[in-house]
C-alpha cells in the first residue's frame, strides 16, 4: 500500500463481506421455503426473506464498489483521499441505513408511513429516510473522491470509475419518483435497475478490471486504457437503448420491441470484449505476479459475466422469446449468474488483490481462496442450470399450454431441491472466502517486498 488512506477500503470491505454472508443465508432460507412452503410462513414470510436477500446483495456490492474506489483512487491519482473523516462518516451512514431497513422489514415497523415505512417496490423497498441517507452518503462520497481526483493525476481508470459512480448516484434519484400510474412507475423503475447493472455499473466493472490488469500483468497503461474506452463505449452505446428490452410488455409503445431487441443483443459485445481484454492482457503481460488467486477471480469475473449477462441475457432478450419467458424462472436463472459473474466476482477479485497490500503482507491463503472460487462458481453455475431447466419447463407448460401457475410449480419441485443443494454449497463457499481473506494468515510472512510493488 503506497498511500495511508487506501486503508479506508478495509472497513468498507469487511462490512461488505458481512452482508455477503447475510445475503447468501437469506437466499438459502428463501430456497428452503420454495421446497418447504410452511417454513416460517407466519413469522417471516417469503416476501420479507426475499427483500433481505436482494437488498443485502445490492448494499454489499455498493459497499464493495466504494471500497474499491477508496483503494484505487489514491494509487491512481497519486494523492491521499481528501478527507478520511468524510469517508468513515459515509460508511457509518450507510450502515445505519442498512440496519434501519433490515429492522423495518423484519418487524414490519411503521407500515404505510411515507417516511419510515417500507416502500414496497422491488429492490427499492428501503424506507424514504434510508433512501435519503443513501443519497447523502453518495454525495459525501462523490465530493470526497472527486476532490481527490481533481487534486491529483488524472487517468482513464479514475475518469471512468468516477463517471460510473456519479451515474450510480444520479440514476438512484429516480427511486424517489413513484407515480400512481403503474406504467410510468415501471418505465422509470428501470432507470435505476437496468441503467445501473447494464450501464453505469459496467463502467465500474471495466475500470476496476483495468486496474487489476495493470497491476497483475504489467502491460503498458496506454494499451490498457485504450481497451477501457472501447469497452465502456460499447457498453453504453448498447446498454442505454437496450433498456427497451424491459419495455416490451408494460404498456410502452410497440417500437421498443425492435429497439430493445437490437440494442440489448449488442450488449453482449462489451462483456465479450472484457473476456478478450483480460485474457489478452494476461497473455501479453510479462509480469509473474504472486497473487494467483486475484488473477483467477479477475479472469473468472469476465468469463462468468460473459455467460451470465451475455449468453443467458441474450437467451431471452429477443422479444419473440421474451414474450413467452418473461417473468419465469428463466429470469431468475439469468439474474443469479449475471450478478454473481459480473459484480460479486468483481468485488471478490479486487478484495483478493488488495487485502495483502492493506495488511502489508505477501499474498496469503491462496489455495483456500482458489478453492472458494471453484466452489462458488461451480455452485452458482449449477444453480443457474437447474433454474434454466425449471424456467424452460415452466414456460412451456404455463405460457404455451396454458396450465395454471400453481399446478406448474408442483412440476418443478425437483429443480427447486437441486437449487437448494447448490445454495448450500454457495453458503459454504462464501464462508470459506471470508475465512481465507480475514482469517489467520498461514503463509503470510514479512512486509510486502519490492517485487510486489507494481513497476509502472
Amino acid at each position: 500500500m503506497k498511500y495511508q488512506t487506501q486503508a479506508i477500503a478495509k472497513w468498507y470491505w469487511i462490512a461488505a463481506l458481512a452482508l455477503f454472508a447475510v445475503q447468501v443465508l437469506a437466499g438459502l432460507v428463501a430456497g428452503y421455503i420454495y421446497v418447504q412452503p410452511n417454513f416460517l410462513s407466519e413469522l417471516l414470510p417469503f416476501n420479507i426473506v426475499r427483500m433481505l436477500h436482494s437488498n443485502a446483495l445490492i448494499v454489499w456490492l455498493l459497499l464493495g464498489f466504494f471500497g474499491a474506489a477508496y483503494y484505487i483512487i489514491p494509487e491512481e491519482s497519486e494523492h491521499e483521499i481528501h478527507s478520511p473523516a468524510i469517508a468513515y462518516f459515509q460508511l457509518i451512514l450507510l450502515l445505519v441505513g442498512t440496519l434501519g431497513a433490515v429492522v423495518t422489514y423484519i418487524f414490519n415497523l411503521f407500515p404505510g408511513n411515507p417516511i419510515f415505512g417500507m416502500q414496497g417496490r422491488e429492490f427499492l423497498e428501503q424506507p424514504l429516510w434510508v433512501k435519503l441517507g443513501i443519497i447523502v452518503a453518495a454525495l459525501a462520497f462523490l465530493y470526497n473522491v472527486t476532490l481527490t481526483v481533481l487534486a491529483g493525476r488524472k487517468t482513464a481508470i479514475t475518469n471512468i470509475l468516477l463517471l460510473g459512480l456519479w451515474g450510480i448516484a444520479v440514476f438512484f434519484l429516480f427511486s424517489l419518483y413513484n407515480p400512481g400510474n403503474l406504467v410510468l412507475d415501471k418505465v422509470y423503475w428501470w432507470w435505476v435497475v437496468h441503467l445501473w447493472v447494464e450501464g453505469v455499473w459496467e463502467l465500474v466493472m471495466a475500470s476496476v478490471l483495468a486496474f487489476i490488469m495493470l497491476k497483475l500483468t504489467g502491460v503498458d497503461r496506454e494499451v490498457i486504457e485504450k481497451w477501457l474506452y472501447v469497452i465502456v463505449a460499447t457498453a453504453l452505446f448498447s446498454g442505454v437503448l437496450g433498456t427497451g428490452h424491459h419495455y416490451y410488455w408494460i404498456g410502452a409503445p410497440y417500437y421498443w420491441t425492435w429497439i430493445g431487441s437490437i440494442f440489448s443483443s449488442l450488449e453482449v459485445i462489451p462483456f465479450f470484449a472484457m473476456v478478450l481484454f483480460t485474457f489478452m492482457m494476461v497473455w501479453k503481460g510479462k509480469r509473474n505476479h504472486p497473487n494467483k488467486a486475484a488473477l483467477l477471480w479477475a479472469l473468472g469475473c469476465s468469463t462468468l459475466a460473459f455467460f451470465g449477462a451475455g449468453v443467458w441475457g441474450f437467451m431471452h432478450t429477443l422479444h419473440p422469446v421474451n414474450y413467452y419467458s418473461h417473468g419465469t424462472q428463466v429470469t431468475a436463472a439469468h439474474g443469479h449468474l449475471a450478478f454473481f459473474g459480473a459484480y460479486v466476482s468483481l468485488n471478490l477479485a479486487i478484495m483478493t488483490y488488495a487485502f495483502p497490500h492493506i495488511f502489508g503482507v505477501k499474498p496469503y491463503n491462496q489455495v483456500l481462496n482458489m478453492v472458494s472460487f471453484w466452489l462458488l462458481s461451480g455452485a452458482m453455475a449449477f444453480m443457474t442450470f437447474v433454474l434454466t431447466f425449471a424456467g424452460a419447463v415452466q414456460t412451456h407448460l404455463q405460457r404455451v399450454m396454458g396450465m395454471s401457475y400453481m399446478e406448474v410449480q408442483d412440476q418443478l419441485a425437483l429443480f427447486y431441491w437441486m437449487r437448494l443443494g447448490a445454495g448450500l454449497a454457495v453458503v459454504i463457499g462464501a464462508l470459506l472466502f471470508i475465512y481465507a481473506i480475514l482469517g489467520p494468515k498461514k503463509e503470510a510472512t514479512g512486509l510486502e517486498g519490492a517485487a510486489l510493488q507494481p513497476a509502472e
Partner: protein
Amino acid sequence: MSELLTKSAARNIFYGGSAFFFAIFIGLVAHTHYYARTTSTDESRLTASVINGKHIWEKHACINCHTILGEGAYFAPELGNVWLRYDGDKDPKSAREALKAWMINQPTGIEGRRQMPKFVFTDKELDDLISFLEWSSTIKTNNWPPNKAG
C-alpha cells in the same frame, strides 16, 4: 489493439457516442411517457381508489412474491391479469366478491402449499386493492401474457 485508434480518439468516441445515444433514449422515453398517459392506459379511470390500492400493494410488498406485468418475484402467480382470470371483465361484481373472499382466507395453512402472509385489510382497503388490480388489467401490453394463466 491497432494503431488506427488512438487513446484520445477512443475517449472522444466514448463521450460523444454515449451523449448521442442517451439523447435519443431521453427523446423516446419522453414519447413513451406521453403514450402511457394517453394511449396504453386510461387515466380517466385512474381514480383515488386505484392509486390508494397501489399504495396498499406496495405497503405489503406483494411484489416480492408475485409478478405484475411479468415483473417481481416468481413465487406466486402473475396478478396483472388476475381480474380477467376471475372473469371480472364479464361479471365485475362476482369477481370482486370472489377476490375479497380469497384474500380474507389467507393464509390457508395447508401443509406443503405456498402460503400468503396474514394481512389485515379493512373492507375499503380490499376494495381499493382490487380496483388497482382491475385497472392494471386494462393496460395495453402488446398482448402479454400469452394466455390467461399469466
